[in-house]
């Protein structure tokens, strides 16, 4: 089970955080700090896996953004790497050639996509189509709602 997923920039700015087990604010801050300190200085082409306390850390850099997750000892690191990749693919499909700015400005959308993809730290939907579909459905709803909301003004 994945314990947490963090997205942070090369400067160590947090872009997205998802915690799958209950933690206190202080503990969360400590983890974010430790992760950025561990991951950012690593040279390119080094191993994507790290150990932190009793957790396995799997991270991957996409352009200027680091995707980093904490796994339990029995989890498969390579698979987690693919989970990250699949998430990037989903973001890409949704935003169309996703970049860091998309995630900064639409971080709530990034959360929604993540919620469709992972649930309780486990992959919920492995089919790319379905996630895209359920996102589209709610977006469609959003559009009609916005039309509806703008109507009464006249």
């Amino acid at each position: 089970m994945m314990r947490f997923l963090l997205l942070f920039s090369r400067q160590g700015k947090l872009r997205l955080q998802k915690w799958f087990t209950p933690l206190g604010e202080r503990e969360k801050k400590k983890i974010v700090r430790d992760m950025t300190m561990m991951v950012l200085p690593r040279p390119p082409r080094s191993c994507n896996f790290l150990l932190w306390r009793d957790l396995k850390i799997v991270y991957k850099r996409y352009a200027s953004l680091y995707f980093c997750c904490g796994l339990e000892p029995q989890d498969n690191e390579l698979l987690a790497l693919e989970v990250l990749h699949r998430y990037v693919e989903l973001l890409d499909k949704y935003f169309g050639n996703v970049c860091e700015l998309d995630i900064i400005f639409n971080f709530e959308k990034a959360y929604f996509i993540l919620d469709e993809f992972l649930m309780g730290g486990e992959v919920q939907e492995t089919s790319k189509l379905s996630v895209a579909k359920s996102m589209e459905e709610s977006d469609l709803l959003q559009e009609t709602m916005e039309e509806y909301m703008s109507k009464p003004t006249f």
Partner: protein
Amino acid sequence: MSDVVEKTLTALPSLLSLDTQSGAGKLSATSKLGNLIRSLTELTSKHEEEKLIKKELAAIKEQVSSPNTPLRQMKEIMVRAVYCEMLGYEASFSYIHAIKLAQQGSVLEKRVGYLAVSLFLNESHDLLLLLVNTVLKDLQSTNLIEVCMALTVVSQIFPKDMIPAVLPLVEDKLTHSKEIIRRKAVLALYKFYLIAPNQVQHIHDKFRKALCDKDPGVMTASLHIYLQMIKENPDGFKELTGSFVTILRQVVGGKLPVDFNYHSVPAPWLQIQLLRMLAFLGKEDQSTSEMMYEVLDESLRRAEINHNITYAILYECVKTIYTIHPKSELLEKAAKCVGKFVLSPKINLKYLGLKALTYVVQQDPNLALQHQMTIIECLDHPDSIIKRETLELLYRITNGQNVAVIVERMLDFLRLGKGEHTTIDLVGKVAELAEKYAPDNGWFIQTMNTVFFLGGDMMQPEIPNNFLRLLAEGFDNADENRQLRLYAVDSYLSLLQTDASSLPQRFLQVISWVLGEFSFLKTGLEPTVVLVHFGRLLEQDRITTETKIWILSAMCKLCRGEACMEEAAQRYSSSLSTTLRQQALELHTLSQNEGLRASVLPRDASWDELEMDSSLSFLDGFVSDALAQGAAPYKPPHQRQEELSQEKVLNFEPYGLLLPVSLSAGSLTDRQSPTGLSLSSGLSGNSADLPHKGGSNTLKLEGVRRVWGKEGYLLEKEAEVETAVVVPSPLESSRQQDDAERAPLDAPALGPTAEYEQVKQQLASSLFVGLGPQNEPCLMGKSDAPLQRFRRKNKAQELPVDTRKKLTDTYSSHNTVDSLLDKDLLDSLSSPQGEGQTRPQDTPLHSDLKDTLKSQAVDRLSRVEGESELLGGDMELEPFSEQSHRQAEPLGLGLMSRLPLELCELGHSQILNLSSDHTLSLSVCKVYREDALVLVIFICNTSSSPVDEISVQLSSEELKVLDGLDGALPALESHGMETFRCSMVMETPLVQSSVSGTVTYHACAGLAHELQFSLGLTLVDFIRPLLLSTEDYGKLWLAFNHDVKQNLQLLADQEDSLSATLNTLTEKLQLHLVDIIGMEGIVACQLLPGRPCLLHCHAHTGSLAVWLRSPVPDLPDCLLYHCQKALRER
């Protein structure tokens, strides 16, 4: 500005951008959030950012608290608040508004509201309670999206105590027509299962339905729950193996929709999930493993594309193959796979290859030999994570011959200082290796010094404790003992001569204890010299109080009434720490009285048995004198608390408020030491005197003795030094040459590169010495004697943490006394008048029990005489006995009469078959003694030839075995029968638990056989009635602070449904019905050993509200589960 206009204005930008851009990208780039983000990026300092965010938060605060802000705008504000929180600024004022948004908004706003709630609030936040109603409403909504959102939020933040509120609705969703809802519901239940497994116990058959769902997504989701359940109890799900194998075969064969493909690999997540479950199911189970060989082979074959995801599957496959019962063909293929990983140029794969090697190396040490050159390269890899993993691998292949090189490498790594967790872990490993394989005294002490120095105050306290134990306990060879101790003394004295104050505290404690205990061994060393060192240490500021206590206690052992001692004693005799003060006073007294000191702290006797008077009877005179002079008698804390609560005259509440008193188990039983002081000082002074004497987990003394003094160590040292020699050094033994020849890179020694290769080869031969099959045959446990193999096998197949735990529980000594006792009993049984002749005295509880239960007697064992019927019948557990009855009919009746007489009297279960092979057949009877659960194991020799050297070992990870952990029998004749007994209690409450064991024996041909068994036990086996009066019940109720409330069903078909229900419960679960008053009933019971639990039941409108309280945290939860079960099964 009117609301309407504002609404339009905020809607405008997003509508405009919708026209120009596809999808939702860049949607809010022009919104207020966009502005905020943009202005943040323009800032240059943290200070400016702080100012800006403060301003922003103030604006947000104003807007959210204005009643006129429309929900639509609220959504946008909430997103900004979330953003500010992500930057690390608190926006707690907006939490309540997030909940409001989720409550009142339409779908869109709701979604943002829920998101904000899940990001803002954690499980223990008070505001969560306000969310329950919203979630309930949304779960019942007809809008799919609302249901989805509710399920998501439930799985994200709902805490344990809020689950019952939503559970029925989530359960209903399992039959929803949309697969996405079903899938989310299953995952939400999975989350519940992780948080509170007891609460979802009753929906297991619905999980089964989800497993058979026609939608593969729902089925995949249900596997998460199954994986968890199988992990906890693999035996309960063996029958599903076939289905899982079929599913995996279909997935691998590409039978799923293409939708589920990931980079043209069919459903990799599902495959890996299944492989993991198969590993748990096939572990140590040959027949189950055989079912999966074929599909595993196919998985290996199919995963051939060069992509990460196929490697992920391969890796999991390899792990499964090495976990289940081995098959040589598969192992070969798996080994090839591991080779591919290790040799891969991709660093991730190399890392996993090393991990896989670590996993398999104990079963197949040759695999490590094949890759020794790669391993050497990895040892100097620039990436420290690779280095770390390599050390882990080396740790697994350490033996007496390569220990020095490996430990040196580990210490080098430790010196780099790679974080606390790594240090703690590695230091523990080094200490373990050093104790096990130390080649000589000097090396051992030096290594341990480095361990103490590097591990500092982070390391686990067992390390110094074990070390001191080893020194104190010694081993057979007195000369070796003396040398080791002397060496330690020497090395510590030289350490103290330098600046010792910078040493870690734990190290100083070890030093002071050893010097205090053993410095007399060094001839010509005046105690004064040591004392001066100690005195200097005491003056250092950095020394903690705890260390000072150790030093003072060491001084006690050395002093001869010197003046400096007097000074130290004086200085600390007014310390604020009571323990330190006491130690100082002891020093003061002992330093002046040589005779007293010699009797209290005899020289070189730290390991002699101390007689402990735990009841403190020597104080009796003192106490009676004090009482005679009118002192108040001692009352334990809980009694004082009760009396306090009684003094409050006006008590309107039926059971009062919860008092902040936690009743420890100890304070219930007997008198406590009035002076906690003397105990603690004794501990600090002689901490090597640990209570678990003889525990096999701590020291592998036989290991130490076996390798000490071997000349192998010397050879390696030489080999390492002579790195530049071209021809293999003549000093190297032939076995090392063998190893070197096996190395893949046998480079001719020419030029500098060749020389480098040579260095590596030398290192390889020193690292991998003793690994080949012809060397040290016993090392990997392949040809060990059966008893030893039992231990090693555990080690080979499990992670190291588990291993250590297992070893603690598994004792393999033979306890003949126990079996003799049983034999006597059996003899008296087999004589015709045996029964009833030697009835043991009824204990009070026993006889009380009979009185109260007389009315409910059910006759089950009428052939056993009078009194045992009552108890035996009553204590019978329905579900168990019925099950077992069917299985055990043919042999049960015969064996029952062989039950030891004193146990016949007590309630017991039917006889259950445990395990059997062609020679022995094992069965067990559970006897419910009032202080423990006694397992009587019957061993029948069903063959026609006698069997010798039977030994039984029992172990349980969760239960506490009081006695009879193991036993031995010299022989068992053909068709003979013997019994073993062991009694156990449940220290921490668990719904169910298990005990496993092994019987080893030698059949006629002298061959050793092993028969394994395991037996599931439930909480009910350990529940006994607690006899109380109503008044006592009221008092106790106040004192307990862990409670659980739940509604149970009443048995409706009866006249007086309350008493009928309560009687059913008391009968099935062995509770004691204290009283029934109107519509309320109070019931009490205890979990062995003596953990009380009280139930308060109140019947109203067809249901029974049960309120359980106990001083033990999980007991109410577990008991409640069994209450539910008992009522349902009725």
